[in-house]
């Protein structure tokens, strides 16, 4: 019983991280109609930046949260530059854009290997969140609960941004009908850059706050990218609600799979994807078939 409860908390925590990763992925996909295959790399890059800042850079040792924010901003800028300088050159060629993001993900992976080496880096849990929350006979690590809280706050924030602000309305318009949005005077190409930066920043942030649990290692990008893909295939692209539920579902399946069927942990991810593709190819909450 305790085992399953702990596993449940871990699943929700992982789901929270996945949500931070995949909400940006899903928005970029919904708006620009391309899966950003650098998304796993951005997650990893954020984690490496965070590890570097927390571990000390040029004699400066950063507070965990400042490091997280700084890393997220740096990666967001990288994402914006990537969109402006590379993807912008290939308008209307989604396949070419996807291949560029794929090529770039290899470059980032090799670059990280060159800079940070092949050994995993661990990141200390921030001091204020070390410890356990006791609930009767059970003890839950505080940090994991904090991640759930952060993910919930970001989810609400994103929802408010998309549902209650002018820019959110513009993004939704762009997702639903980019051509029409252009016609009514929304500068969709500026939105592309904004959303790309936002998504990149979120992925990096997820990488950093996930680092104390997952640690940072070469290949982290290739571990995370398929998860984001599966979340979006299940949840439906361009839908915040979709990535929310998709993340929770995958969080549970992945963690329970790893605990109960360690050899097939990756394979059981296949099942929900199979069901969704067979019966609802646009995803649970998606508006269009990609």
């Amino acid at each position: 019983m305790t085992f399953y409860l702990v596993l449940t908390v871990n699943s929700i925590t992982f789901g929270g991280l996945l949500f931070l990763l995949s909400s940006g992925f899903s928005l970029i996909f919904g708006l620009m109609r391309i899966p950003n295959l650098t998304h796993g790399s951005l997650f990893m890059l954020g984690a490496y930046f965070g590890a570097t800042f927390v571990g000390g850079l040029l004699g400066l040792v950063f507070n965990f949260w400042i490091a997280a924010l700084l890393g997220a901003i740096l990666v967001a800028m990288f994402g914006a530059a990537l969109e402006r300088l590379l993807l912008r050159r290939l308008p209307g060629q989604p396949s070419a854009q996807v291949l560029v993001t794929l090529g770039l993900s290899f470059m980032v992976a090799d670059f990280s290997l060159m800079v940070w080496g092949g050994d995993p880096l661990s990141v200390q849990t921030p001091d204020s969140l070390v410890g356990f929350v006791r609930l009767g006979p059970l003890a839950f690590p505080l940090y994991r609960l904090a991640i759930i809280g952060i993910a919930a706050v970001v989810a609400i924030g994103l929802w408010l941004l998309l549902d209650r602000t002018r820019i959110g309305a513009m993004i939704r318009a762009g997702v639903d009908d980019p051509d029409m949005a252009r016609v009514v005077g929304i500068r969709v190409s500026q939105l592309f850059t904004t959303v790309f930066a936002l998504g990149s920043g979120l992925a990096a942030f997820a990488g950093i706050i996930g680092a104390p649990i997952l640690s940072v290692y070469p290949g982290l990008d290739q571990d995370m990218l398929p998860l984001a893909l599966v979340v979006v295939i299940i949840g439906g692209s361009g839908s915040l609600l979709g990535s929310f539920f998709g993340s929770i579902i995958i969080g549970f399946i992945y963690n329970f799979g790893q605990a109960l069927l360690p050899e097939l942990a990756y394979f059981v991810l296949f099942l929900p994807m199979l069901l969704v593709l067979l019966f609802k190819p646009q995803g649970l909450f998606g508006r269009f078939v990609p």
Partner: protein
Amino acid sequence: MSARIIALVAAAALLITLPFWMPGVYYLNVASQILFYAVFAIGLNILAGYGGLVSLGHAALFGIAAYATGYLLQHGFGHPAAILIALVVALASTALYAVLSLRASGIGYIMITLALGEIVWGLAYRWISVTGGDNGISVHGRPEPFGISLTSAGAFYYTCLIVFVFSMVAGAIFVRSPLGAALKGTRDQPRRMNALGYHVWAIRFWASMLSGLLTAIAGVLFVYYNQFISPQTLALTASAEVVLMVIAGGASTLFGPVVGAALVVIVKNVVSGYLTRWNFLLGAIFVAIVILMPEGLVPGSARLWRLAWQRMRQPRKGAEAES
């Protein structure tokens, strides 16, 4: 036309005599690698080039065939049985793969194939009791068709060459067949093809099967060449490499993927002698080719050459107008 025939005859003569003038076994092995990767690339080109369905998980099918061969050999099957069952297993996987991924086309197809490929990779990596995990599966010996041993580099090269020629011919026949024409139709105008009464899904499905068969054959050659298979062979990098072969040489051309395979294998072999950063270079070549010459090296260089030629001539025209 006759120039084309002369070129073909010359290429055939070069390929057939290659073991006699190649300076060493190393180079002969590189040639074998180029040939079986070319078979792989021809297989992918049918889907990615003629069908417009860019699969980013094709290394999984390649790997499934290789793993199945290795697993069966390890469990005491003979070479012919192992190869045959491996091809059947790979074809069954291809069918499942196609049923799932053909729910979408375009970007959705790319995404689903990528996810499927990664899942198969995860399976190879984690399902240790079958795949050996990171240690992979070792294969000992090569088959001996009609009593001819394929252990020597030369004999293996000729095997690859024969398979390669058959794949080329199969590819050429397919492209010229009504099914091939229909496939190109579904790439360019899926709705119109549908309206004309073509079964778009079935056309794509059979193209996937042919592509899967060629891929699986290449996978079997790979495992016999390397005598080893590990999850690395199924990784996203491997899928990307073969996509690079197809688009670098020129997708939806018959010889493009062959040129691409030669380019990637040679660069990889040469570069890895000097640099450990092959993945960085792979990524950079990818980005450069997609942005600068998306139609592939052969047609792309021709276009850049024409552009340079025009630029050179234009100022002269301007000068004439002034005078």
